[in-house]
C-alpha cells in the first residue's frame, strides 16, 4: 500500500527533482564558497527547508550576528506560506500523525503539487501528500549536499551565482502577475519598496516596505476588493 502511494506520487515530483537540481546544487556550492562545509549545509537544509530563505540566509550567516533582523526577515520572506497553509487547511484535515510533517514540508513546490493534484483512484490521499512532501524534502537535502561536495572539487568564479535568488523571485512575481487579471496589489508590492529604498537606503528598506505594503492594502481595501470582483 505504501509502495503504491510512493509510485503514484513519484511522477508528480520529477519536475521538482529537476528544478531542485539547479537550485540545490547552487545553494550547496555557495555555502562552500562562504566557508560552510557539508555538515552545516545539510543541517541547514534539514531544519530550515525553505529554498529562498536559505539563499537569504547565506548573507545573514556571513554578516554580523543579528537575531532580531534574522527572525523578522524570515517571517517577511516566508509570509506567503501563511496563504499556502490557509489553502491546505481542508486538504490536510484528518491526516493524523503525518499532519505535522505535511505542514513542516509545505514549501512552494510541495504546495503547488498537493494543492492542484487529486490523488489517483485507490490511493490514500494522506499517504500521497506525505510521499510528495517526503520526496521533495529528500531532493532538496540531497542536491544541496551534492552541491557542497562538488564545491570541494571544482572551483570557478562564483561571482553572480547568488543572482539565482533574485531570478527566483522575479519568476514567482511573473507567475503571480499572470495569474491575476488586475494588478493593483502587485503594483503596490512593486512601488512601495522603491519608495522605501529611496528613503531608507539599501540596507534598511525591507521591513519598512513590508509595513508600507500592509498599510496601503488595508487603507485601499474596498477599492482593491471591487477590482477583484
Amino acid at each position, binding site marked *: 500500500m505504501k509502495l503504491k502511494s510512493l509510485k503514484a506520487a513519484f511522477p508528480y515530483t520529477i519536475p521538482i527533482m529537476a528544478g531542485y537540481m539547479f537550485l540545490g546544487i547552487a545553494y550547496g556550492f555557495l555555502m562552500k564558497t562562504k566557508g560552510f562545509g557539508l555538515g552545516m549545509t545539510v543541517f541547514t537544509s534539514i531544519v530550515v527547508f*525553505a529554498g529562498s*530563505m536559505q539563499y537569504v540566509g547565506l548573507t545573514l550567516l556571513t554578516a554580523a550576528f543579528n537575531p532580531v533582523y534574522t527572525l523578522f*526577515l*524570515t517571517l517577511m520572506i516566508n509570509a506567503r506560506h501563511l496563504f499556502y497553509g490557509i489553502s491546505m487547511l481542508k486538504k490536510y484535515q484528518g491526516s493524523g500523525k503525518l499532519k505535522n510533517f505535511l505542514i513542516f514540508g509545505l514549501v512552494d513546490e510541495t504546495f503547488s503539487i498537493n494543492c492542484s493534484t487529486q490523488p489517483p483512484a485507490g490511493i490514500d490521499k494522506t499517504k500521497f501528500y506525505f510521499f510528495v512532501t517526503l520526496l521533495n524534502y529528500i531532493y532538496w537535502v540531497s542536491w544541496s549536499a551534492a552541491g557542497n561536495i562538488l564545491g570541494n572539487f571544482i572551483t570557478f568564479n562564483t561571482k553572480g551565482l547568488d543572482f539565482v535568488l533574485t531570478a527566483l523571485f522575479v519568476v514567482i512575481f511573473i507567475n503571480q502577475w499572470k495569474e491575476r487579471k488586475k494588478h493593483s496589489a502587485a503594483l503596490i508590492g512593486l512601488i512601495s519598496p522603491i519608495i522605501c529604498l529611496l528613503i531608507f537606503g539599501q540596507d534598511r528598506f525591507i521591513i519598512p516596505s513590508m509595513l508600507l505594503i500592509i498599510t496601503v492594502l488595508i487603507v485601499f481595501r474596498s477599492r482593491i476588493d471591487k477590482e477583484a470582483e
Partner: protein
Amino acid sequence: MKETVYSSKLYKSPAISLQKRIFANRQMRNSRSFHSSAKPRVKREINFINFYAAGFGGGMELNMNTAQIIITIALMSIGTMATRFIPFLCFPANKKTPKYIVYLISN
C-alpha cells in the same frame, strides 16, 4: 634494524652538527607525511571555531562564532515553521477563516 638504531642514536647525539640537524628538519618538513597529517591538525586547533562552523573544514573567515551561527539557523527555522504552522493552529478546518485574513494574505 641495526642501522635504524644507529641513525637515531646519531641524530640524538650532541656531536651531530647543527647543519645536519637543519637538513634533517627540512627533509621532515618536505616529506609527505608531515604535510598530510601534522600540518592540518595544527591548523584545525588554531581555527577550531571556524572549523566546526564550517561543518567539515571551511575556508572563509566568518563573522560569527559557532553558537551564533546555530542560533541564526535556528531562528530561520523557527520563523519558517511559524509561517507554516500558524494557519493550522489559528484556523482549525472546521471553523471559517475571517475574511480580513483571507484578503490580506491572498493579496
